[in-house]
């Protein structure tokens, strides 16, 4: 990951008649050879940004450089990028081979070389032997492979993918996530993917830009995004999270404490560098909370000796349960009246029978688990 292949500088896109910008002063670099994902809810501007890179939308202001070259005056058919469309946009009146060979023909690649490259691309996406089929004789997943081959055969500097997996069923989607990652490793082309699906983003991406209301909320690796979200939007959008308002009562380089009316006293084994008494939010992932029978939590927490007494502990009553097979989710009403969600892995076959509705439970979490958010 050396040079940036795409440099986006202060890009803003306003549609006429809309009071808010679809993309609002976004700047980011996409490195050569990386798998970059634009993640966000619908309407966050991620597709608009992708379409501006492809050249289908013209930025209101700002510049996009691809391989160091300003793209402002370059039309889509002259850009060194190719796109896989959400609907795949496979030409229905052409065979698979004709679809894949379409761009090569325009580029002036003919004869044996064109044939070899089409065959190579079809092999890459595991469609060899289906070259003479028409798109209406293919499944959705196969049509997507045609769209992929059609773009890859052009050997673009960047491959843009607009919600590439959204039209596939869950099993196929999981399989294609791996295949896309493998494919990207094989061909070494920079992939830029747009998705609203956080699982998809986490599993495929090298880096993720989470977008919200036209702005980049956070740009980080998948694990950093999940474990160190920068703000409440990212914490809530990526994975599920319990959020509690609180006041910072202690903030030193190696420890911090927050008083949350909803959750109780929270202790961290690192500093957060916020002003004393500031309003903050504590984010706690459901899988980072341990569930116990009453009283047991306190003992285990005390034995761990990672926090002062009466910190990182909570008590409540189970109000909801959903058994998902691998884990069970518990919705617990804390004694403060706030709700908290806890997930518990079903390590043995009868684990889900340990707790049930209206059971009193105690909870504890480790001092490195909560994340303190200032915004």
């Amino acid at each position, binding site marked *: 990951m050396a040079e940036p292949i795409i440099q986006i500088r202060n890009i803003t896109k306003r549609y006429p008649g809309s009071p808010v910008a679809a993309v609002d002063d976004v700047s980011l670099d996409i490195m050569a050879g990386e798998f970059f994902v634009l993640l966000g809810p619908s309407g966050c501007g991620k597709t608009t940004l992708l379409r501006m890179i*492809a050249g*289908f939308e013209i930025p209101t202001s700002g510049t996009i450089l691809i391989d160091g070259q300003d793209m402002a005056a370059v039309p889509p*058919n*002259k850009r060194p*990028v190719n*796109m896989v469309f959400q609907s795949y*946009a496979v030409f229905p009146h052409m065979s698979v081979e004709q679809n894949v060979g379409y761009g090569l023909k325009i580029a002036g690649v003919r004869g044996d070389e064109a044939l070899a490259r089409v065959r190579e691309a079809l092999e890459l996406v595991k469609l060899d032997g289906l070259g003479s089929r028409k798109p209406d004789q293919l499944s959705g997943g196969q049509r997507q492979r045609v769209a992929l081959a059609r773009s890859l055969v052009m050997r673009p500097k960047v491959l843009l993918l607009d919600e590439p997996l959204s039209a596939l069923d869950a099993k196929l989607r999981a399989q294609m996530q791996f295949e896309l990652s493998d494919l990207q490793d094989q061909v070494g082309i920079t992939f830029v993917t747009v998705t609203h699906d956080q699982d998809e983003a986490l599993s495929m991406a090298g880096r993720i830009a989470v977008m919200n209301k036209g702005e980049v909320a956070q740009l980080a690796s998948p694990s950093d995004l999940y474990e160190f979200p920068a703000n409440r939007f990212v914490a809530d959008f990526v994975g599920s999270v319990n959020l509690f308002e609180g006041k910072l009562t202690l903030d030193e380089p190696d420890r911090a404490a927050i008083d949350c009316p909803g959750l109780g006293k929270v202790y961290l084994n690192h500093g957060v560098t916020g002003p004393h008494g500031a309003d903050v939010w504590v984010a706690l992932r459901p899988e980072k909370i341990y569930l116990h029978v009453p009283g047991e939590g306190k003992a285990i927490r005390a034995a761990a000796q990672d926090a002062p007494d009466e910190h990182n502990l909570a008590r409540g009553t189970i109000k909801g349960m959903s058994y998902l097979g691998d884990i069970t989710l518990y919705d617990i009403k804390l004694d403060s009246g706030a709700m908290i969600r806890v997930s518990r892995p079903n390590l043995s076959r009868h684990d889900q029978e340990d707790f049930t509705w209206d059971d009193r439970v105690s909870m504890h979490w480790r001092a490195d688990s909560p994340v303190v958010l200032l915004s």
Partner: protein
Amino acid sequence: MAGPLQDWRQHKRPFAAIVSAPIFWLVLFFLVPMGIVWLYSFGQNVGPAAIEITGTLDNYKRATEWLYLSIFLKSLAVAALVTFICLIVGFPVAMAITFATEKWRPWLLLAIMLPFWTNLLIRTYALMMLMGQNGYANKGLGAMWDGASWLRTLVGLQPLEAWTPVQLLYNNFAVVLGLVYVHLPFMVLPLYSALDRLDKSLIEASLDLGAGHFRTLMKIVVPLAGSGIAAGVMITLIPALGAYLTPDLMGGTDSQMIANVIERQFKRANDWPFGAALSFLLIYAMFALVALQSLRGSRAKVGAH
């Protein structure tokens, strides 16, 4: 999902109740008169107002004489030319409507359909007023001519001689123009409906793969609008082939089309059997066209699967 009228085979009575009235109407006022005319085509005049159905084929023999066949072929040529011009003019119009913003599209479609609100006769007369010797077209051309003449005098050249109005009406040009004007909406609407169904990302995909706009139009848009083009051609060609009013009002002595000849047989010549034979020759030709079209359509479908 199956409503009470979904499958008429299972619900014969409500279906019969609904369709019997229109079927009755069609049989009585369309099929029966058509049948009578068809029978006349095998008859002969036995008096000023009496026709005897003798089963003779003389009328058809006469109808295929070169005198009439040439007019028939000319009608076909005019209709084909009109259809072709409608296609060339109508395609960009349909494209423009398809790619117009949501706000504009209904208004543009309305503009296409607006002529239907006015009677054909009135529209034709309006066009004739525009194209007459003293019409606005000639006035505009005359004004430009005078302007050019004036410019010449400015630079010291001899002025042009006086403007002589161009003969725009009462010739084949006027007939073709008038027919194009009348039939353009019939072409634009099916083209629009085909283009509107076209997935716009196909066009973007073509551009994305390096194709220019013209190549995208010829390789992607036109082939995929094929069904709309075929429909537009059929519903323009068939009425244009049977056009009567436009050649009658706007054409010259040499611009008569087959419908004008037919009309003359029923009225001035009072030869109904021969008129009927000519009419049915036209209908057979149209049947052949439609059959050809559906054959092409079914073959395209077979080829796709």
